């Protein structure tokens, strides 16, 4: 064991920034420069902490990354090298390489990519190679921490890794990360100690540390500020005595690593050291439940939880088409619909022979996590796609799946361990699916043993005893349920089942599936993989929870079914409303329903050309006359989108034909993250039948060119909202001129003017979305 981790308690140092400010560092100044310019004063602070009793001093490198140091004229290597030497000179028993947040937020909220974050951390870690341990502190974004920890694992030479995050009084970090998510994710990743620092004083941290102690078996770190800052002066007022006595509370809870953050001084650390002299270590034995999480949401598997199965192209032509067209919005739509219907976890399967599954897995995971906190289950047989998904997943996901074959276990389980995921084990091997419950139980046991031998927790292994179709193997149904029951009771593992397969080939499939689901739940099924949009399935789970006394006082059941009369879904088709009227009134579901029924009699393209587009034209004309405003135009477009989706689904199922009046690449330019305007343009263009390749926001010049080349797009639309990002628009157009001379450009955005558009070489300026459509019609002459 590392001697560092061997001590009964470990005392860290106290504040650095506030100590430097007391020595004259300006607010907003660069503390890291003092490593080179005023080393004696840095060493003096370190030494004061060592003399006060600190075992570990943190290097003065909190913001020492290439982005924050760019303006100093010094390299990260230089500054960190000096900082480690200064810390060493203090005579500290251990020197920690201190790493704070990068200072730019990662995608999707910010613009920094995960890979760039990883590389920034790598540079810091390599520069701090001479330190004894690596500390990430004051972290807020769990994804950023993951990038850092992975870099520390890969480049830190096996040094212990500590992570402390900063929580607010609501028990969450600024980005919304919860205590349980932090603990599940970081313990899974194999860090050595976790805890809290900064943001709050010791008193406010009590409930947060209490919660953390329940969620981790790792040593817990507490490094608070010296109380809350004075609102006017921003200074801290906790005396060393008060600080020391508050810290005793944490020692009694079971925390073992203590230090101070903003406003604490060597005297505060001495008080902590003195307090620990009369304190014995409180042994903790927390029982961490089976659970998965995103950064902001933890799902404890202590009762049946629904895994939504709809993000999967198997047997779905419309989904396959979406994958081929890289239509992420379609996937997001599927995600939202399932969550609203009651899914607790979403299965994500984006494998298709013709596409790059790795790239698609990354895009899908990132996109889904950008709009929802629901944890995900990564479903793929491609190890490369799996690892890519695991790498960028923010939280602790489920891997679907491993099976009892040696090759599968060798391939999948090390990835599960490395990224700290949970895993679904399928009870099959090279001999296929055993007919008996005993056979499947034996495979489950084998998978479990292998997982345990790799250090994967028992609670993180979920077993799928596999549903066979009742029509083909009627006798096998009860074997599956027997196996579920044995795995649950004898191995103590959570169980998973995809239930829909049970009714394949039978009439009244829903009836069969629903009853099987209830039987399986009773046999011990924890994670049914179902289509939550089928109300009877979700209802079966809710009803089971009621009857099994899980949904206490039927709170959830009544919330869903308590209304005396369930309102019947509106059937607008009977009302005589036309599609045009529905669009003009912005009635999306009505427009969709009308289109669906029209498709029985009318050719899809006739609906588009004779109903949809005229309705949009009419709305556009009203908009131009100032009779309606942008929101009403968008409302009409949104309704038309509902109609269009029906047409696309119909076409993908009935023919190879698709609606495409021309391909247009759209992007919000590099550096700009406002995409609402661009999205409005997109929806309108799509409604008019154009195929829109939406590259999103903050798009590098090169990506616009690559997409324009790939689709040989005749028209590219660029959007920018800020004056500061207009040069990016100009740069993109210049590169397009060079590499894609065939294409024309249309630009728009709040700060653009026709004159400026002309100046930067755009072919067209569009003042709004409607005008963009007019321009597209002109370019494509349709």
């Amino acid at each position, binding site marked *: 064991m590392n001697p560092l981790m061997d001590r009964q308690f470990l005392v860290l140092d106290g504040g650095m920034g506030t100590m430097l400010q007391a020595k004259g560092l*300006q*607010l*907003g100044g660069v503390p890291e420069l003092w490593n080179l310019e005023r080393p004696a004063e840095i060493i003096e602070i370190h030494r004061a902490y060592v003399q006060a009793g600190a075992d570990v001093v943190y290097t003065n490198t909190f913001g020492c990354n290439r*982005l924050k140091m760019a303006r100093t004229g010094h390299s990260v290597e230089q500054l960190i090298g000096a900082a480690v030497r200064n810390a060493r000179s203090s005579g500290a028993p251990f020197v920690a390489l201190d790493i704070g*947040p990068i*200072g*730019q*937020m990662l995608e*999707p*909220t*910010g*613009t*920094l990519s995960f890979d760039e974050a990883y590389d920034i951390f790598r540079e810091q870690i390599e520069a701090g190679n001479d330190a004894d341990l690596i500390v990430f502190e*004051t972290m*807020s974004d769990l994804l950023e921490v993951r990038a850092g920890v992975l870099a520390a694992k890969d480049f830190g030479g096996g040094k212990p890794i500590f992570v402390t995050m900063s929580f607010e009084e*609501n028990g969450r*970090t*600024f*980005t*919304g990360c919860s205590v349980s998510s932090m603990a599940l994710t970081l313990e899974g990743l194999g860090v050595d100690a976790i805890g809290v620092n*900064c*943001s709050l004083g010791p008193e406010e941290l009590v409930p947060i540390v209490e919660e953390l102690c329940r969620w981790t078996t790792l040593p817990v770190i507490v490094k608070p500020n010296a109380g809350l800052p004075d*609102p*006017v002066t*921003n200074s801290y007022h906790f005396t060393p005595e008060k600080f020391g006595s508050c810290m005793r509370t944490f020692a009694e809870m079971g925390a073992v690593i203590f230090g101070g953050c903003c406003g604490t001084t060597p005297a505060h650390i001495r008080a902590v050291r003195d307090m620990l002299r009369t304190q014995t270590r409180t042994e903790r034995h927390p029982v961490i439940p089976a659970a998965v999480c995103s950064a*902001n949401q933890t799902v404890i598997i202590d009762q049946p939880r629904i895994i939504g199965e709809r993000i999967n192209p198997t047997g779905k032509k419309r989904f396959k088409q979406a994958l081929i067209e890289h239509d992420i*919005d379609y996937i*997001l*739509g599927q995600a*939202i619909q399932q969550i609203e219907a009651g899914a607790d976890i979403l299965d994500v399967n984006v494998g298709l022979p013709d596409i790059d599954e790795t790239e698609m897995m990354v895009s899908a995971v990132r996109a889904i996590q*950008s*709009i*929802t906190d629901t944890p995900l289950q990564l479903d793929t047989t491609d190890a490369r796609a799996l690892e890519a998904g695991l790498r960028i997943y923010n939280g602790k996901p489920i891997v679907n799946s491993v099976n009892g074959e040696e090759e599968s276990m060798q391939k999948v389980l090390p990835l599960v361990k490395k990224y700290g995921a949970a895993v679904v084990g399928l009870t099959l091997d090279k001999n296929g699916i055993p007919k008996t419950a005993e056979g499947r139980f034996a495979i489950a046991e084998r998978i479990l043993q292998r997982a345990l031998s790799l250090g994967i927790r028992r609670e993180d292994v979920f077993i799928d005893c596999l549903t066979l179709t009742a029509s083909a193997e009627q006798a096998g149904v009860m074997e599956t349920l027997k196996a579920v029951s044995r795995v649950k009771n004898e191995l103590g593992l959570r169980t998973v089942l995809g239930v829909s397969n049970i009714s394949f080939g039978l009439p009244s499939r829903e009836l069969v599936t629903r009853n099987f689901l209830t039987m399986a739940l009773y046999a011990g099924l924890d994670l049914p993989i179902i289509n939550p949009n089928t109300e009877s399935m979700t209802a079966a789970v809710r009803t089971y929870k009621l009857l099994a006394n899980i949904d206490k006082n039927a709170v959830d059941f009544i919330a869903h079914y308590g209304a005396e009369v369930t309102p019947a879904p509106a059937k607008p088709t009977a009302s005589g409303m036309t599609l045009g009227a529905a669009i003009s*009134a*912005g009635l999306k579901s009505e427009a969709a329903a009308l289109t669906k029924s029209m498709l029985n009699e009318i050719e899809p393209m006739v609906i588009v050309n004779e109903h949809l587009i005229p309705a949009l034209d009419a709305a556009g004309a009203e908009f131009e006359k100032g009779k309606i*405003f*942008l*929101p*009403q135009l*968008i*409302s009409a*477009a*949104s309704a038309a*989108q509902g109609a269009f989706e029906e047409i696309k689904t119909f076409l993908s199922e009935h023919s190879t034909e698709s609606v495409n009046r021309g391909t247009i690449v759209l992007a919000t330019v590099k*550096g*700009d*993250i*406002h995409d*609402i305007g661009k*999205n*409005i343009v997109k929806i309108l263009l799509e409604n008019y039948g154009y195929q829109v390749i939406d590259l999103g926001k*903050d798009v590098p010049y090169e990506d616009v060119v690559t997409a324009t080349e790939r689709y040989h797009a005749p028209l590219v639309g660029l959007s920018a909202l*800020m*004056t*500061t*990002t207009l040069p*990016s628009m100009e740069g993109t157009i210049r590169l397009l001129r060079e590499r894609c001379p065939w294409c024309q450009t249309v630009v728009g955005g*709040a*700060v653009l*003017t026709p004159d400026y558009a002309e100046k930067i070489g755009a072919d067209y300026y569009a003042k709004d979305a409607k005008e963009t459509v007019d321009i597209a019609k002109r370019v494509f002459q349709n």
Partner: protein
Amino acid sequence: MISLPAVDRSQGFRYMGLHSKPDAQMLRLADICEKRLLSAALPRYTYQVCPIEFTTQGVVCTGTALTLTGDDIAAHLHGCGRVILLCVTLSAAVDTAIRAAAAQDVLAGMMTDAFASALTEQLCDAAEQEILTHFPDEFPTWRFSPGYGDLPLALQGDFLRTLGAEKRLGVTLSAGGLCIPTKTVTAVIGLSGMPLPKGKKGCAVCRLQATCPYRAKGVHCK
């Protein structure tokens, strides 16, 4: 620390370009957007008070690394002895809420975004009101933000560092110089011991005055 129980809807509708009375359908959507926005928002602010010095380089915020450059801010702070540097944010969860709404429905995305902008303004007002209670004997100017007039947006980095906005609020700057979370505002409020003359406000110092769609309609954005 500040509670904002409702969105100023008339402002929100205006931000999204709805210049007519919202119909029932629009109001239904507004209820949904407002509810989700309010549950996501974690309104916070931080501020720093510092003496200022008028120099040829600009207005120096003493004791900090920040110098406010340009003629407009100097004129704005004329007669002030110190300033309040303010940063407010609705938090990153609001960005997620806007994205989620947009993924579901473009109009909902647009409305949530506009409502969030309105809520940010409300937060600025509430924060300013709360802060000024600490300075009962001084006379404040109106809020002036980087990007107004010739006060460069490029100052955001120094501004945020001076406030410790990353640590205190979780506010960062993107490579393109934009505040993240997006519903974030930074502003300078001058404090004077003497009553201040009413300075130029709003459109007079706005860089968009030539192209502003509101001005074209004869109204104001605020």
